[in-house]
């Protein structure tokens, strides 16, 4: 038996895809992905209409999708993250309905529970065999973990694996197994390696970023959680990486052996694993080549599904065992609500990803953000969009001081005792506004262009349209 079919079009035909159905994609090839565009081009050419695209994230490389929306091929979009180039079009109201944002944990849960059923999942696979066993660990377009594709593979009615590296059966070290796959298509290239993962992720040299990173590491040190069995997650931004590096110095100096680091994995976390700071890495997504190589070579570095990573109410999610997570914010308000969906003009430029999942699960959810970006203060009275509710955020670290959520009085006392510059969040807001001034409120349209759905399925926020040239 052999599941290989001659073309993407043939796979679409065989899958039984019809008008109004839902197709899904993962974003492990990030801004180098060819597969979503290849598939949607065929779907459009076949004359199908009214489809919903459910992608774990959309990047600027997916701009051709906008044409399919305008042409009526696509009438629904669901994602956990939408980058700025596409976000601007959605904010202008290109979609007649509303974009549905779900978290990295909420998305697979909604798929599994049939809230957002997937008819056909198209899984870009850097390596696959003819029966559909596939992985991201090998091949010319290797991206590492395929964590976000697991739920799609398991719960979609039909599953199509698309690969540019067809390996002999059985593929060694598969991530998704053949019993979940219906068809396999071989193409010339599934992505541009340059856009998939960066060669290296670099620590920031920006003094303000370094200052915040050093505060972040000191907050962790003072929190009382940094001891044997410590678990940690951080992002791939410059300040987050610097914080991880400073944390590594502390852990090595104090001979503290943690349990695991999780989430999107960078070379920086791989270094921490090798330095003995952690027993294992739980990897839902690789951010750089060093992480890809480590996932392939080191058994302590394990691939996990988005369900295992972050799904709420499941039998077990890694985020619920997390001690500390470091997060970003485009805005935070005086109730600690965080916006990571829109910029200060209200234009979509991101999404929750795992933000609210990890914030809800971790013992300490720390937001690192500068007091202001260019002339815009980052702390507001009320965020334009609630991506993560303030009750899940414990501490805000800025270059001008550290604010602790009043609900976490013990942490506040610990940070004060450690000599860290703790102040009220309102004081920090005033400090920033003392420099930037208070910005005028931005006008917004009447139309809701996106819904932000919390990890439990609740509506957190409605994102409104913005004028053509805000």
């Amino acid at each position, binding site marked *: 038996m052999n599941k290989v079919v001659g073309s993407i079009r043939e796979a679409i035909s065989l899958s039984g895809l019809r008008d109004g159905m839902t197709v899904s994609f993962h974003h492990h090839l990030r801004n180098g992905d060819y597969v979503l565009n290849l598939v949607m081009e065929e779907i459009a050419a076949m004359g199908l209409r009214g489809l919903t695209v459910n992608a774990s994230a959309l990047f600027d490389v997916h701009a051709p999708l906008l044409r399919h929306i305008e042409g009526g091929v696509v009438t629904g979009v669901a994602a956990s993250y939408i980058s700025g180039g596409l976000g601007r079009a959605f904010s202008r109201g290109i979609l007649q309905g509303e974009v549905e944002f779900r978290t990295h944990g909420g998305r697979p849960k909604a798929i599994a529970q049939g809230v957002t059923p997937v008819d056909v999942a198209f899984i870009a696979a850097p390596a696959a065999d003819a029966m559909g066993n596939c992985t991201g660990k090998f091949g010319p377009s290797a991206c590492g973990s395929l964590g976000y594709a697991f739920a799609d593979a398991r719960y979609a009615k039909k599953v199509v694996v698309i690969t540019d590296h067809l390996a002999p059966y059985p593929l060694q070290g598969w991530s998704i197994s053949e019993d979940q796959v219906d068809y396999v298509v071989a193409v010339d290239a599934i992505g541009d390696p340059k856009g998939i993962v960066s060669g290296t992720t670099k620590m920031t*040299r*920006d*003094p*303000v970023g*370094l*200052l915040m990173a*050093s505060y972040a590491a000191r907050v962790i040190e003072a929190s009382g959680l940094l001891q044997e069995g410590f678990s940690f997650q951080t992002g791939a931004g410059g300040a987050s990486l610097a914080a991880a590096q400073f944390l590594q110095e502390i852990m090595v100096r104090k001979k503290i052996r943690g349990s695991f680091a999780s989430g999107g994995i960078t070379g920086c976390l791989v270094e921490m694993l090798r330095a003995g700071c952690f027993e294992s890495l739980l990897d839902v997504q690789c951010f750089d080549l060093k992480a890809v190589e480590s996932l392939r070579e080191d058994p302590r570095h394990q691939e996990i599904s988005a369900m295992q990573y972050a799904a709420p109410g499941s039998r077990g999610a890694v985020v619920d065992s997390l001690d500390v997570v470091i997060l970003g914010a485009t805005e935070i308000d005086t109730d600690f609500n965080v916006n990571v969906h829109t910029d200060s003009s209200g234009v979509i430029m991101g999404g929750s990803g795992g933000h609210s999942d990890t914030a809800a699960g971790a013992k300490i959810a720390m937001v690192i953000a500068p007091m*202001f970006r260019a002339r815009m203060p980052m702390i507001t009275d009320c965020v334009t969009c609630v991506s993560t509710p303030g009750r899940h955020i414990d501490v805000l670290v800025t*270059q*001008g001081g550290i604010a602790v959520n009043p609900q976490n009085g013990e942490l506040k006392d610990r940070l004060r005792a450690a000599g860290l510059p703790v102040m009220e969040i309102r004081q920090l807001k005033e400090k920033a506004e*003392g*420099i930037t001034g208070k910005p005028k409120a931005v006008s917004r349209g009447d139309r809701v262009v996106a819904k932000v759905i919390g990890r439990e399925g609740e509506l957190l926020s409605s994102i409104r349209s913005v004028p053509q040239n805000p």
Partner: protein
Amino acid sequence: MRRSMLFLPGNSPNLLVNAACLGADAVIFDLEDAVSPAEKDAARILVRSTMGHMDFCGCETIVRINAVDTPYWQLDIDAVLPEGPGLLMVPKAGTAEDVRTVEAYVTRQEARLGLASGAVGLMPLIETALGVENAFAIATCSPRVRALFLGAEDLTADLQCRRTKEGREIAYARSRLVMAARAAGVEVYDTPFTDVNDDEGARSDALTAKSLGFTGKAAISPRHLAAINEVFSPTAEEIDYAYEVMEAIAAAQRQGKGAVALRGKMIDAPIVARARRTIATAQALGLGREEQV
């Protein structure tokens, strides 16, 4: 108190606006080497406006103006003088005359602007062989001179030798500057350690400077500030000893004794002076005791 001074390029708004947060006792807004000729006017305006608008929360602001052999230095002074810089750093100070030229202009401008005469101090930057040899003359050429500052990068170029992390090539200049400054009764600050990724090297270099008698040390990266501040802060033992000295002196006075011994050593005037300085620094850092000595 200036344990640490951080150089910030005068044409970098993001750094200027964050100057107070970075952990330095003083920041040096640089209008000279960090700013290309095409950017000089923009940097000057930016530094002036930042100084006029921002609250630096106790962090002292110093401005490095351009050298007297350029067409910029007077414009620099015109721009920043009304904003009350803590010090003006005068680069490439080779002779007392260089510094007097700046002093005369500052005095004229203070009068013209109705500012208090003599309020702004000068910190000559000694970064040539000529400057090192003239260090004492420079330090004593004007009451405005509050400190000398060693610039090792330009100096080693002038000496035609390689700048090393160990710094043997600047050992003479360091000692010569400390000697001249102390003889003149002014402060003296050490050159930055330039490998921003070498934290241990920065600490070691600061320890060297402290051991030679420098008052503090500059940095080009905020990463080095914590080490510099720590090295140039009195230790708990030094603070305790300083209070013991002052208590012993007070006790001796109460008992009408002339000579005082502590831990088997005679306490003389220099030891008392050092103890007073240590206590003053400790108090400025919030490490002092509540009782007045």
